[in-house]
């Protein structure tokens, strides 16, 4: 499979009357986008705005982040299985508005937090303070049940990204990246002496606000599936979960999965990167046993020497992570795990409640209870009331001048367990 990603560097976003990219400036046809999204009659109201790095802007509550793209060769444009007919992802040429992101804002339930600060202390802790964000705030008509509401907002975000992505159709990219890996037999013949490595990507798949989709299929219903890494890089995987702010994998992070990119960089040099196992995280223990067994079986079937395992979420998925780890290690397959931790607000607690002696190689992406202090914003995009949820977590969290303390767990992508951001924990 061969995929070319043409990156068009975006240096600003403006709202206007046409959608185009000129000298790195992305202009978005505001009314055209609103009209496009309102084709879904269940959407009552759409508000478009722009948040740029460094502006004193806070976006809350963030539902998803999506990278705007357009397919110009091979396959189908959009998100196959969701906003387009089913089609193979991962081949041909996809153009990316690199540096831009669609950020959907929409509270489906009142307790969502998920904040992106574009400036100051808050900005340090989220990778999405560095992107030019086109925010899409969606209100639905009355009487919509939560499941449908979530779906409407999820799909509106994808449609918006598709709409804006069109701007890159005829633009010459600043950089073209090529991703090519052949069949496991071809690659093994090419690199007979390189260790065979798989990536097991765990996904939250547990119901409302806790779902992930592959080609539009709710991953709760699948057995672990093998994907070519290109498929995920080419929009086959979509996030439907929006309450695990710090460690959920947004659609943008699937499209730019950092584990895949970093393994790709070593393919043919140090390792033979053979693919991704998409492992659903069930809430039932039987499901956890089934998935961990099946994942390890796939790894054995493919003759893997090592597996990188990334978690999504916090709480019950910790069990899945360690089950996969234990079973792999027992089968002689070396693991490296990526997870976040809770060491308490002062960092003095034992980080893990679940432990396994087999977990000898673990990357920590930060303490979810680490407290940061953020100033009040000059402008809030989204729902100002959500800040009260965020700031009211405990006594004394909110100061009189509007400065407040929040834990990293409220910040989008802060402790990303696919290692998308640069946070870690060290023993001090």
């Amino acid at each position, binding site marked *: 499979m061969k995929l070319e990603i043409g990156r068009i560097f975006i240096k600003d976003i403006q709202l206007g009357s046409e959608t185009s990219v000129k000298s790195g400036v992305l202009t978005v046809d505001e009314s055209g986008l609103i009209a496009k999204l309102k084709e879904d009659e269940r959407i009552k109201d759409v508000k478009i705005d722009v948040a740029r790095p460094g502006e004193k802007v806070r976006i809350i509550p963030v539902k998803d982040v999506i990278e705007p793209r357009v397919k110009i060769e091979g396959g189908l444009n959009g998100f196959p299985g969701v906003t387009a007919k089913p089609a193979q992802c991962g081949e041909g040429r996809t153009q990316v508005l690199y540096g831009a992101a669609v950020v959907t804002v929409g509270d489906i339930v009142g307790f*969502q*937090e998920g904040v992106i600060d574009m400036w100051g202390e808050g900005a340090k802790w989220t990778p999405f303070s560095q992107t030019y964000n086109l925010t899409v705030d969606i209100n639905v008509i009355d009487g919509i049940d939560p499941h449908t509401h979530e779906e409407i907002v999820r799909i509106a975000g994808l449609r918006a990204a598709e709409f804006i992505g069109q701007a890159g159709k005829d633009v010459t990219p600043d950089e073209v990246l090529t991703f090519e890996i052949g069949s496991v037999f071809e690659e093994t013949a090419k690199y007979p002496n390189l260790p065979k490595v798989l990536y097991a990507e765990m996904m939250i798949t547990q119901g409302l606000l806790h779902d992930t989709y592959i080609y539009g299929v709710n991953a709760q219903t699948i057995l672990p599936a093998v994907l070519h890494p290109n498929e995920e890089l080419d929009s086959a995987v979509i996030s439907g979960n929006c309450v695990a702010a710090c460690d959920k994998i947004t659609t943008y992070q699937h499209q730019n999965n950092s584990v895949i990119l970093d393994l790709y960089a070593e393919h043919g040099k140090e390792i033979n990167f053979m693919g991704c196992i998409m492992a659903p995280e069930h809430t039932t223990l039987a499901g956890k046993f089934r998935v961990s067994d099946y994942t390890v079986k796939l790894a054995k079937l493919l003759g893997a020497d090592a597996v990188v395992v990334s978690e999504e979420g916090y709480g019950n998925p910790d069990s899945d992570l360690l089950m996969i780890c234990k079973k792999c290690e027992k089968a002689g397959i070396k693991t490296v795990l990526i997870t976040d931790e809770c060491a308490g607000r002062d960092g003095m607690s034992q980080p893990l409640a679940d432990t396994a002696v087999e977990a000898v190689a673990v990357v920590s992406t930060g303490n979810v209870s680490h407290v940061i202090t953020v100033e009040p914003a000059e402008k809030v995009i989204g729902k100002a009331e959500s800040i009260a949820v965020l700031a009211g977590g405990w006594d004394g969290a909110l100061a009189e001048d509007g400065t407040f303390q929040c834990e990293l767990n409220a910040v989008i992508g802060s402790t990303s367990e696919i290692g998308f951001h640069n946070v870690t924990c060290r023993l001090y």
Partner: protein
Amino acid sequence: MRNIIISNNPLVAEKYENVFFVDGSVEETLVKVRDLVYEGHELVSHPLAASLRVLFSPYRSVIVANQCEQLNFDHAEIIEGSICKYKKHMDVRKADEANSDDYKTVDLLLLQSALNDEKGKW
């Protein structure tokens, strides 16, 4: 009936029959689950949710098997670990009462999803 639902969520108690209703906190609910595990009931669903925000929920429903077998050590460790983890996060946190209706709904929907997931499988 194969399962019992241990829950402090009134919506769950209204909707299902096989509910052991805990008139109390999430922690008390988890402690009840632990007692049942100690008596030999196996866990069907994991005691914790998969996201931090839902960990802060004032409502929680957990499914355990109805029949009583020998104590399952792994399950005992899971529930003990879950209680530790829960307490670690909630020690100083205030209950989010303003959104309790939403928390009730989400807990119910996640429970439904778990029951569906479990349907027709061992």
